[in-house]
């Protein structure tokens, strides 16, 4: 399964070239973008922290396919956009077990339906330090175009894995809580 195939069909046109086909998306960063229905994602629950957005659109950051990064652009809030990437390219051993309630809520019937994306953080001015949130991927059912950010308890993943080679695998927490907050999610099992 090549995740990129799902998102390279976007026709990325300026307003001057508007053809009337596709879906019109207004992005604060990108201006007006026309996208195919196949690039739309409706979240079954909002992405935590952003309760006002449910509808998103996946837009390649590089129309020519030179970059694997995608905008996950909110269609409900033009100023909201994440950068997402299919994680397996950078983490070939990324192994996820989708929790049963999420599988059922997304009506996933086959592995072919599943598109896994991870949200990344690019520190301003330091793109080499880009990190991926591997513990909470955005999982999309490409058949129904519905998605959800899923939390992988017990996976051992954190919210801050470096994509590019670094001395450590995981970036330190940015806040003053660094000493006791590793960014890991506590395990789900009870003692």
């Amino acid at each position, binding site marked *: 399964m090549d995740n990129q195939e799902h998102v*390279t*069909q*976007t*026709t*990325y046109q300026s307003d001057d070239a508007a*053809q009337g*086909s596709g879906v019109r998306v207004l992005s604060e*960063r990108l201006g007006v973008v026309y996208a195919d229905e196949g690039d739309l994602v409706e979240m*079954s*629950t909002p*992405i*935590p*922290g*952003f309760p006002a957005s449910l509808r998103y659109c996946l837009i390649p*950051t*590089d*129309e*020519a*396919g*030179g*970059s*694997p*990064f995608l905008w996950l652009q909110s269609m409900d809030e033009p100023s*909201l*956009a*994440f*950068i997402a990437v299919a994680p397996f390219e950078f983490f070939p051993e990324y192994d996820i077990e989708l929790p049963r*309630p*999420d599988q*059922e*809520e997304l009506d996933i019937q086959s592995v072919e339906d599943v598109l896994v994306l991870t*949200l*990344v*953080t*690019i*520190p*301003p*001015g330091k*793109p*080499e330090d*880009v990190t991926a*949130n591997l*513990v*909470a991927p955005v999982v999309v059912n490409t058949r129904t175009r519905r998605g*959800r*950010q899923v*939390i992988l*308890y017990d996976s051992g993943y954190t*919210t*801050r894995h470096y994509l*590019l080679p670094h001395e450590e695998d995981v970036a330190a927490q*940015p806040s003053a809580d660094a000493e006791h*907050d590793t*960014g890991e*999610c*506590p395990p789900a099992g*009870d*003692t």
Partner: protein
Amino acid sequence: MLVLTRRVDESIMIGDDIRVTVVAVKGDHVRIGVEAPKRVTIHRLEVYEEIKRANLEAATGAPALTDLDQLATLLPARPKREPASDS
């Protein structure tokens, strides 16, 4: 915050379709069972807060296009594709 006192095996209804049950109490640990529709997510608070923090950082730090361009140069070379044309 509404605070109720329950014994083991007693429950609380939240709305019409969320049920919270005290499953067991052991020392200072309480085992809590939650029955809810699949569309309702259930997470321990500290987990949810960490995910939310990471999302906020990812969104508000959304990069300048120059950072994205520079990032593309740091990646292993990829074959470029022609932009898809409408069929």
